[in-house]
């Protein structure tokens, strides 16, 4: 097998690592903005895509298919985001004899968009959230349905994913206003403007089941992930397992996920997301038909290499895994480190990373394509690193995360590290007593903390000035090297002794 990787950044690197282990040859496509990217150093071949915008490059189906054919690839890994759940891309791969690492176009159509997925799940008895059963025609229809199901409501991109293209509205005016923004965002991010509406549940948790299915009808669940730490539907921290589930609920969720995926004839790695109410009632949210950003926490607790399983499935192998052999071991937490400014409402902050020092040590895994001097392009997702820790239990994983975050140095672009740093010290988080609304409650405390950091920054600035070598015409004079001074002293003392 020779694999084309139709993605970039940390996930391209993640896929390449497993391919190298298995001896699968890789071709990595890259945009102009990514011509210095880290994964290019480890792929077997590189294939340039002119341009830098996603639509010119990683979203461009004809260019990607041509790249695969030009390089004699027989399979394509889409990673997450970009074309990972795009039916047209899956079809294009199938028509050109390329094995797509993901579900077949038939299965994708059954779960193809969020609306169809609702119907598929509903039909096999999995509870779904009240909402519209088809795409919204205009803002008036949106407001009408919202009135019927009751506020608050969520406007969602039918073809969306990854937490993008969603807005919450509390009243008809907002529904109308957000209709336009969500439509725009959807068109720009997913190339399709259709949106639909769902009732917003009161303070639910977000719990999801990671599954893998082969082409011989076997679906195996790797257990749940807790993903309730979200800002504007954007997951920021994930863990496995979830403190919220008891054995009975865990069984029910696993069963619902496996049943739903079997009904859709799903193959390859997939995730079934659920919202869990305080009462313990759960609703199907959506199926993520790809390898997910947070897959690494499941890998840490089950010791399964999901990309390896994906590659086996696509080669028609039967899964060797069996459900009663899957053991969830210990606890894993993943912090998403995004190039976003926590001081300025988390605006994306592309730029140059002038220094990068990753943490290591027992139970620490970091998936990142950063290096000192690299550029974080403005064109793509702001995720720049996934820092995960594994511990024998939750508090062990948290302790390790505290240290790992402290050791992480990313200088040059502001990141979400301060948020994670404070979360690890937050009582509510440490107790595990949170839901999807918790981060909003927590963020003002983060703002206060960051304002406090400013005071630290002021004194460090003064110390930095006091310690700075004297400057002449604005240029720093060279400092004597301490090594050289030591070497000279030693040399002199040696020659003295000799003389």
């Amino acid at each position: 097998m020779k694999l084309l990787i139709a993605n970039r950044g940390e996930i391209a690197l993640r896929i390449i690592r497993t391919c190298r282990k298995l001896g699968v040859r890789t071709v990595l496509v890259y945009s102009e903005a990514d011509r210095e990217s880290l994964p290019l150093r480890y792929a077997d071949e590189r294939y340039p895509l002119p341009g830098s915008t996603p639509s010119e490059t990683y979203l461009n189906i004809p260019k990607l298919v041509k790249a695969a054919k030009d390089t004699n690839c027989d399979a394509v890994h889409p990673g997450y985001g970009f074309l990972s759940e795009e039916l047209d891309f899956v079809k294009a791969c199938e028509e050109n004899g390329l094995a797509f690492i993901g579900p077949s176009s038939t299965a994708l159509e059954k779960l193809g968009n969020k609306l169809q997925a609702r119907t598929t799940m509903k039909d096999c008895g999995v509870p779904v959230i009240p909402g519209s059963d088809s795409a919204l025609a205009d803002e008036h229809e949106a407001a009408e349905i919202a009135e019927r199901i009751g506020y608050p409501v969520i406007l969602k991109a039918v073809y969306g994913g990854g937490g993008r293209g969603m807005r919450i509205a509390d009243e008809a005016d907002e529904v109308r206003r957000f209709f336009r923004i969500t439509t725009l965002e959807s068109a720009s991010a997913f190339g399709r403007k259709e949106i639909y509406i769902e009732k917003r549940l009161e303070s639910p948790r977000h719990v999801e089941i990671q599954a893998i299915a082969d082409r011989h009808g076997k679906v195996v669940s790797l257990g749940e992930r807790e993903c309730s730490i979200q800002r504007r539907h954007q997951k920021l921290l994930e863990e496995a397992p979830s403190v919220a589930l008891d054995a009975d609920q865990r069984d029910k969720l696993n069963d619902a996920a496996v049943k739903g995926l079997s009904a859709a004839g799903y193959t390859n790695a997939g995730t079934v997301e659920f919202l869990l109410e305080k009462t313990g009632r759960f609703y199907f949210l959506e199926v993520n038909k790809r390898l997910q950003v947070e897959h690494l926490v499941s890998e840490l607790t089950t010791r399964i290499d999901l990309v390896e399983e994906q590659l086996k499935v696509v080669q028609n192998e039967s899964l060797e895994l069996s459900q009663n052999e899957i053991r969830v071991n210990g606890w894993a937490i993943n912090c998403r480190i995004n190039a976003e400014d926590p001081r300025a409402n988390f605006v994306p902050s592309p730029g140059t990373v002038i220094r990068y020092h990753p943490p290591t040590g027992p139970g620490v895994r970091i998936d990142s394509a950063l290096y000192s001097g690299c550029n974080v392009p403005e064109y793509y997702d702001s995720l720049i690193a996934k820092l995960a820790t594994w511990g024998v239990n939750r508090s062990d994983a948290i302790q390790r995360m505290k240290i790992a975050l402290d050791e992480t140095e990313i200088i040059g672009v502001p990141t979400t590290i301060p948020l994670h740093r404070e979360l690890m010290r937050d009582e509510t988080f440490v107790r595990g007593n949170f839901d999807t609304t918790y981060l909003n409650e927590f963020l003002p405390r983060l703002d206060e903390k960051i304002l406090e950091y400013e005071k630290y920054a002021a004194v460090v600035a003064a110390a930095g000035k006091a310690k700075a070598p004297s400057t002449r015409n604005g240029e720093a004079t060279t400092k004597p090297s301490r090594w050289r001074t030591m070497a000279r002293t030693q040399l002199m003392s040696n020659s003295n002794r000799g003389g």
Partner: protein
Amino acid sequence: MVSRLRAFRVEINGALYNVSMDQMGKDKFRAQVGEAFFEMEAVSTGAITTWLVRHADETVRGETMALPNDRVDVWLAGIPFPATVQTIGTGGYSVPPEEHRQRSIGGQVRALMPGRITSVLVKKDELVKAGTPLLILEAMKMQNEIGSPIAGKVKSISVREGATVKKDSVLITIE
């Protein structure tokens, strides 16, 4: 080592801090801002100096890079705090001047990040409230609604829909 007392005026993001500082050793400093005391130690020096800053029972890491014209780039827990540092004298501790923070607020709406204007939601001379959405800036796949910082009238619109803008460029002026 004889301690050296110095005073600095530090400006960060429009806020002013008066810092009294005492050098305790080659790489060690003690500083006071208002009523708060900080201890700092340079643990790695070079073009970028790494500091451990202790305050109360907490230790935070920071980095500094001294630049010309009194500017010092500072990062704390990875957050950039570009600072301007003026030496205002040496001498003993005086009563620390009241720390005052002032944020400049203007009617100029600037791009917080490079990106593309996907939508302009107001017209020239339109009256807006603080928070009224003015335009939508797309960056890193996100549509960012940019609201008016103040109440007033749209004096000028410097961008058109579809325009690519650089960070900090003026988009709209409100007066």
